[in-house]
């Protein structure tokens, strides 16, 4: 959050500084790998709102570690990348702030142990990603896409909150670790169905599953580093993370409830197919990547469903291992490809894949990274993508439900991999081969920071593929154990083997893989034909929830808002006040009338006579006279004096009724108010322009109604002192615990000091407001307005302080 300030101080070095911070965090998490791989869980908790069982607790297990490594590892390169990609942007500091904020919330999300803490970080990622997607705030499209992403994921977040609260009710604890440790499964609870539905809505909106997937391609208007980060390894993976995290609880571990499995498999499978299909019809660089990300997310969700469906624990673990491998591989190749896309755009300012070609010779490093990522995405050995795909296919063939669904899913996965191969070639290979296209300026390789990220991620995928025992296997093993709910003792026995030797010896899975690669390459060659054939299907994408979103959001919400604005907020303050007062009369009046109105039958005058001393009578008479005079007199001065009289008499009343502190304050305030009013009054015009007679009678009616209502309220309150006043607490502890004999003062500065703190802050704000109002002199079309002339200060001074204040406001925003 300090990034803008750091940026100003450190200038160009900011990127390196922040990258160092992120890098250190990444190294920290990497150092935890050996520990976590043993099945350990690190935990840290701070009580936050103990009354609600909310604590700021974090825990690090295999699954969290996988994601934490992705967040920080990819994040490191993203920061470096952004520092180059956006280096000319004036708002780079703000960008860093958003990015670091997002990174922190994402880390919090994957590390959170308390489900409400998790939810808070979940929402923080929505908000910070909104800022990131809409970073180019001058572009209406970016703003719209950002808003769309926020509304979709935000409303999903609401559903999630409800689901998580129900889960806490059902399980009796808010700590995920306690739920997991006790082997709690929600399927026994009667709240199970609502919990699952609500959590799924939350996860599906975040992870862009059909029918909520439409926001993700829209979010591509973000700067490339943002898309690369949000869509390869973080934001959209949050939903996947949540589902994986809750699998042992909601899916019931192995052999879990059917509904969970079927929903996840069907939705995930459909998303996978549809995403891949739509992507294959795009030519816009980032749109291809966006839809292919949708497809990958679908695959992950489908796999999560398969974990629960596995008949035996071993199969569940194997499926989970496939999932974890795929998540790792996907983060590497997709992150790399997004950055490549940005680098290409940066170099040639073209966004259409088909128009770009032959860049391999001028941008060797970028091209190398892109090709590595492509191979990984295609699932060609020896890269990690191959291992992931094999693992997935093997488990789907071996451990699937064995039913129709299982068979269908295998076919779907095969079809999706064919299309994925096409997509990989399209974005990773196409721009770098063939004849060099002509551009206005010769394309050139970007600076190191632009290609370092893709290259590093590509290398990571390669190393992980060739030598999985280095880091991929331990991470995958620990993550899979967390997803499948494998106890710590059995961790070592888990069948996780990502070595090439092992994977290359598998039968049918390998054939499917090879077939998919061949078909994909073929499709790549014939892609123009493919696009022509499938054109009619394009319209289907409109059948998604985007239509509904538009209808609800624009037609419904905004329409209603503008309607109510036209009726109730027509710009006249007097109309507002009338409406407010009438509403008060209607609502409070009804409530009061409903409460019986026992006080109404009382003999008011008799009560007053019996209960009033001389001095009170005099004071009240003066107050009433002053109030009436203030409304009726025609002179400004007289009206002010009348109001002042009311104030002083009320102060005396406070004396009579035993509140000397209040009385002293009231005297002082009244004096100062009158002085200030007198300072101003002579510069205002006389009272004139009275309202029409009917209007005055109408207003008087409202006023009298409010007055009667308030009298009734006081009487009702006095005759209804039901609860024991809290004052005894203060009366007894003021001296013993607050060391003060003036109970009122002790309440102010001790018992309720936080309130007082807020109040003096308000005072400060009012003072600053007044100062600003008096100093800022607006200029109209460059000229100093006639009223800006002031004694002692030239127009220039007023203007300067005005701009200075405006700049202060602007600087205040990003921090």
């Amino acid at each position, binding site marked *: 959050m300090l990034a803008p300030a750091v940026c100003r101080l450190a200038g160009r070095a900011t990127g390196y500084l922040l990258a160092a911070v992120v890098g250190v965090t990444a190294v920290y998490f990497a150092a935890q790998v050996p520990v976590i791989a043993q099945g350990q869980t690190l935990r840290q908790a701070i009580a936050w709102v103990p009354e609600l069982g909310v604590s700021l607790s974090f825990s690090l297990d295999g699954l969290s570690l996988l994601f934490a490594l992705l967040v920080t590892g990819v994040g490191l390169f993203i920061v470096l990348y952004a520092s180059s990609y956006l280096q000319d942007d004036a708002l780079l500091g703000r960008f860093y702030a958003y990015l670091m904020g997002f990174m922190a919330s994402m880390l919090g999300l994957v590390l959170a142990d308390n489900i409400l803490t998790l939810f808070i970080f979940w929402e923080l990622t929505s908000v910070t990603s909104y800022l990131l997607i809409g970073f180019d705030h001058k572009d209406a499209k970016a703003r719209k896409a950002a808003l769309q992403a926020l509304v979709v994921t935000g409303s999903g977040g609401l559903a999630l909150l409800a689901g998580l609260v129900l889960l806490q009710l059902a399980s009796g604890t808010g700590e995920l670790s306690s739920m997991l440790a006790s082997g709690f499964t929600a399927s026994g609870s009667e709240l199970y169905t609502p919990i699952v539905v609500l959590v799924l809505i939350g996860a599906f909106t975040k992870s862009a599953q059909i029918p909520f997937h439409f926001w993700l391609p829209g979010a591509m208007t973000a700067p490339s580093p943002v898309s690369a980060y949000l869509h390869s390894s973080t934001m959209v993976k949050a939903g996947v993370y949540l589902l994986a995290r809750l699998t042992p609880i909601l899916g019931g571990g192995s052999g879990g409830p059917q509904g969970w499995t079927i929903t996840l498999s069907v939705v995930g499978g459909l998303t996978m197919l549809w995403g891949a299909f739509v992507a294959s019809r795009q030519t816009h660089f980032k749109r291809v990547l966006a839809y292919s990300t949708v497809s990958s997310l679908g695959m992950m969700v489908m796999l999560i469903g398969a974990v629960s469906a596995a008949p035996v624990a071993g199969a569940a673990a194997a499926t989970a291992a496939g999932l974890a491998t795929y998540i790792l591989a996907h983060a590497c190749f997709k992150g790399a490809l997004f950055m490549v896309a940005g680098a290409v755009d940066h170099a040639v300012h073209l966004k259409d894949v088909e128009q770009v070609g032959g860049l391999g010779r001028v941008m060797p490093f970028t091209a190398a990274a892109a090709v590595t990522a492509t191979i990984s995405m295609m699932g060609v050995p020896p890269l990690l993508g191959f291992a992931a795909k094999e693992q997935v296919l093997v488990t789907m063939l071996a451990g699937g439900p064995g039913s129709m669904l299982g068979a269908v899913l295998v076919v779907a996965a095969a079809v999706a991999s064919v299309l994925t191969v096409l997509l990989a070639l399209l974005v990773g290979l196409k721009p770098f081969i063939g004849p060099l296209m002509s551009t206005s300026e010769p394309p050139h390789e970007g600076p190191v920071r632009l290609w370092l990220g893709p290259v590093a991620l590509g290398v990571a995928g390669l190393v992980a593929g060739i030598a999985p025992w280095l880091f991929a296997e331990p991470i995958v093993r620990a993550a899979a154990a967390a997803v499948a709910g494998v106890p710590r003792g059995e961790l070592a026995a888990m069948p996780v083997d990502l070595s090439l030797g092992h994977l290359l010896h598998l039968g049918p899975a390998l054939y499917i893989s090879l077939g998919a690669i061949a078909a994909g390459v073929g499709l790549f060659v014939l892609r123009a034909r493919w696009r022509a054939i499938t054109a009619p299907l394009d319209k289907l994408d409109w059948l998604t929830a985007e239509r509904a979103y538009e209808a609800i959001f624009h037609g419904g919400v905004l329409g209603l808002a503008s309607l109510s604005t036209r009726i109730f907020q027509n710009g006249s303050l007097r109309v507002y006040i009338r409406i407010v007062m009438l509403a008060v009369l209607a609502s409070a009046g009804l409530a009061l009338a409903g409460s019986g109105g026992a006080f109404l039958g009382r003999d008011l005058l008799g009560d007053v006579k019996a209960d009033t001393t001389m001095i009170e009578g005099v004071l009240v008479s003066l107050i009433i006279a002053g109030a009436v005079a203030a409304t009726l007199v025609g002179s400004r001065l007289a009206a002010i004096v009348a109001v002042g009289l009311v104030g002083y008499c009320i102060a005396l009343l406070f004396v009579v009724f035993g509140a*000397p*502190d209040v009385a002293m304050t009231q005297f002082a305030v009244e004096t100062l108010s009158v002085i200030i009013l007198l300072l101003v009054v002579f510069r205002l015009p006389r009272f004139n322009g009275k309202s029409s007679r009917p209007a005055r009678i109408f207003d008087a009616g409202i006023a009298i109604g409010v007055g009667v209502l308030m009298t009734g309220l006081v009487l009702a309150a006095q005759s209804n002192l039901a609860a024991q006043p809290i004052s005894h607490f203060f009366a007894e502890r003021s001296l013993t615990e607050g060391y003060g004999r003036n109970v009122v003062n002790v309440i102010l*500065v001790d018992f309720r000091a936080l309130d007082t703190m807020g109040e003096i802050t308000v005072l400060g704000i009012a003072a600053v407001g007044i100062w600003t109002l*008096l100093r800022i002199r607006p200029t109209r079309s460059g000229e100093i307005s006639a009223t800006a002339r*002031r004694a002692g200060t030239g127009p220039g001074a007023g203007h300067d302080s005005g701009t200075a204040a405006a700049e202060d406001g602007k600087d205040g925003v990003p921090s």
Partner: protein
Amino acid sequence: MIIRSVILQSATRLLVPLLVLLSVAALLRGHNAPGGGFVGGLIAAAAVVLQAYSCGSPSARRLLVLDPRTYLGIGLLVAIISGLWAPLLHGQPVFTGVWGTFAVPAVGELKIGTPVTFDIGVYLTVLGVVASMALELLED
């Protein structure tokens, strides 16, 4: 707006120190008797306003020594520090009163707690707010 009156000016010369003393007294005894930071701050501000009325706002600013907004800032800072004292140094919830007794030469024992310093913060804030408002308006 300055009211040029010899009587007012001589009265001011007498009243302003009295008001300042009164305000400090109200602040310090506020914990045990009617008074406190709010009232004290208002009385002190009234003294400033009186000075400004009779001798002009530059003289009132000289009386304040610092810019009124500085008082406001210092006041808020003192109040916040008083509030955060307990959680930061004693691990207790925010705004828990912490008391200490100090031996002061010639006065005897002095009992000071964060509520007292908090009240001083309130005093300074109120003084700063009201004085700044009034002086700005006077100079406008």
